[in-house]
C-alpha cells in the first residue's frame, strides 16, 4: 500500500518537474505493482498537473515548464492508457481539441499557451496554426470531429472571423459536431454570447477549466 502511495507521489512530482523519463519509469512500476491505472492517472499524473496549473496561474511556473510537464504527462499516459483500454475503463476529462488563430490574424503566443495547458490537462490538441481560413476550420471539423473547436483572435478587426467560422459551420450543418470556445485579448463574454459560441476562455487556465466542463456536458 505504501509502495503504491510512493508511486503516486513519484508520478505527481515527476510531472511537476517535467521529467518524462521519470514519469515513464513510475508508470511502468505502477502497472507492475497492480496499481489501478485510472488511479495512477487521476491521483498521480493529474494531481501533478493540477499543481502545475496552479503555479502557472500564480506566475510561479512558465510556458516552457508547462510544456515540459505536458510532455511528461503524455509520456505517462502512453504507458497507462493501453491498460485502461484493456480493462475497458473510461478515462474522464480527455477529448480532442482543434485550435487555431483565425484568418487575418498572425498572433500565436496566447493560442500556444492555451494549447500547452490543454495538452497538459490530457486533451489531444491539434493546432492548425495562425491565419487559418474559415473553410479550413470547417473541413478539419468535418474530418476530425473534435470535441471542442477553439478560435483565437487578438484584434478587434479579426475577431469578427470567429463569427464567420461559426456561421460557416452552420451552413455546412456541422455546428453540432463540436463545442466552440473563443478567446483572445479583445474577446469578451458578451462577444462570445453574441456570436453563439459555447464558451469563452479568459486565459489559458480558464480555457482548460471550461474545456473540461464542455466535455462533461
Amino acid at each position, binding site marked *: 500500500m505504501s509502495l503504491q502511495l510512493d508511486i503516486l507521489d513519484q508520478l505527481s512530482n515527476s510531472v511537476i518537474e517535467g521529467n518524462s523519463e521519470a514519469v515513464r519509469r513510475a508508470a511502468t512500476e505502477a502497472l507492475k505493482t497492480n496499481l489501478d491505472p485510472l488511479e495512477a492517472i487521476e491521483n498521480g499524473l493529474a494531481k501533478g498537473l493540477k499543481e502545475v496549473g496552479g503555479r502557472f496561474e500564480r506566475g*510561479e511556473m512558465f510556458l516552457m515548464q508547462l510544456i515540459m510537464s505536458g510532455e511528461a504527462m503524455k509520456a505517462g499516459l502512453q504507458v497507462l492508457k493501453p491498460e485502461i483500454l484493456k480493462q475497458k475503463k473510461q478515462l474522464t476529462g480527455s477529448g480532442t481539441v482543434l485550435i487555431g488563430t483565425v484568418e487575418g490574424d498572425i498572433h500565436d503566443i496566447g493560442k500556444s499557451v492555451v494549447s*500547452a495547458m490543454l495538452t497538459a490537462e490530457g486533451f489531444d490538441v491539434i493546432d492548425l496554426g495562425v491565419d487559418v481560413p474559415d473553410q479550413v476550420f470547417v473541413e478539419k471539423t468535418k474530418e476530425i470531429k473534435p470535441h471542442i473547436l477553439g478560435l483565437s483572435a487578438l484584434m478587434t478587426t479579426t475577431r469578427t472571423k470567429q463569427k464567420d467560422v461559426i456561421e460557416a459551420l452552420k451552413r455546412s450543418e456541422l455546428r453540432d459536431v463540436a463545442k466552440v470556445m473563443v478567446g483572445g485579448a479583445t474577446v469578451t463574454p458578451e462577444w462570445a454570447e453574441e456570436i453563439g459560441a459555447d464558451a469563452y476562455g479568459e486565459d489559458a487556465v480558464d480555457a482548460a477549466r471550461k474545456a473540461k466542463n464542455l466535455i462533461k456536458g
Partner: protein
Amino acid sequence: MSFSWNRNALTLSVKEVKRRLEYVTRSGSGVIIKMSKEQISADLEAGSKDAAERGHVPELTTDELDCVLDIMVEPTKIVGIERGKEIVLSRDGGVLKYTGCTRYAGAPISKEQGVIVGERIIGLDTMELGHADYSFKPCKPIAFDEAHHMENAQMLSVIPLFYGAMPNLGTYYQSLGGRWPTPTELLKEGKIKESREVQERAAEDLIRDIVYIAKIMDQSGADGLNMDTTAAAGDAEFYASLKAIEQVKKETNLAVEVGMAGEMILGMHCELEYQGKRLAGLWPHEQGNLIEKAGASIFGPVVNTRTTKSFPWNLGRALAFIKAVSKAVQIPIHVNMGMGVCGIPMTEIPPVDAVTRAAKAMITIADIDGI
C-alpha cells in the same frame, strides 16, 4: 386623533435609500452596469487584494480605497483633477490613430500634418512618428524615409517628438517571414534547447535593428525613441529590449521611453537574466526597476483588464500595481491607459466615464507623472 412622527424611522429610511442607491459604472468589457456603493467598494478592495497576492505588492490602504470610491461615485459623466495636479499627456502609435483606416479615424492626412493635429488641436504634450507596420524590423528598410518625415516634423513642431515602434520579436521567426524557426513550433516537438537558442539568436537581431533605427532617428533630430508593447513575445524580447536601451543610451542622445505589453513577463525562454534577475514572471514594479537600470528615461507600465470582472475591480487592481511601481522606480512613469489596460474596460473606443475616473485615480493614488 393624534399624529406621531418617528424621527428614527425617517432617518433609517433615508440611510436605507442611500444604501440602496446604485451608481452607473462599467464591466471590464465596457458594458454599462449599476452597482451600489458597497459593491463598488468591495470590488475595489478585492481587485487590490488580487494584485497584492499575485505581484507581492501592498494593498491599497483604507484611505486610498475611500478616495477612489469617492471618484467612482461622482455624479458627473466626466471627472477631472484639481489645478496644479496636471500631468504629461502623450500618445503611442504615431499618427496611426488619425490616419489608420481599419479602426481609427481614417483621416487622409500626412504624418507631418498628424503631428500638428496632435500638438495644436488635441493638445498632446509629446507625440511620436511611426511606420504603418509598427514594428522595428519592417522599419529597417524604410528607415531613411521615416527619417525624412522626422526632420520635416521637427521643423514644424515644438513638442518633444519620439520615433516609436514595437520590438515584436515574433517578426524574426519564420511564421512571420523571419529567418529563425518559430520557438513555439519547436516546443511542440519537445525541442526545448533549440527553442531557447532561436530566441537568443532572434534577440541579437532585434537589438541590432533597434540600435540601427535609433541612430538614424537621432541624426534626424528625434527627441526620443519609444519602444511600444515591450516583451509581447516574452522574456527573450524583454532581454533584447533592455540590452538595446543600454546601447541606444550609450550611442545616441535620445531619450528612451518603454511601454510594456502586459503586466507579467511571459516565460517563453525561462532562463534569461538581466543583471542577475530572471526575467520570466516579473511584475510591473520589477520590470520598471530593470528598465531604469538599463538607462531608460520613461517607463510605461501595463496592467491587463479582466473582462469578466467589473471596472472597479480592475481599477483597484491596477492602482495597487502602479502604486508599487511609483515606489520602486525613480524615472518618470507614464502609465499605459487605453483599451483593456490599467483598469480601462476592453472596448475599441474606451468610454470617457471610465477613462477620466481611472486617470484621476491614477494621478491621486499612484502618483504617476504622465499617461
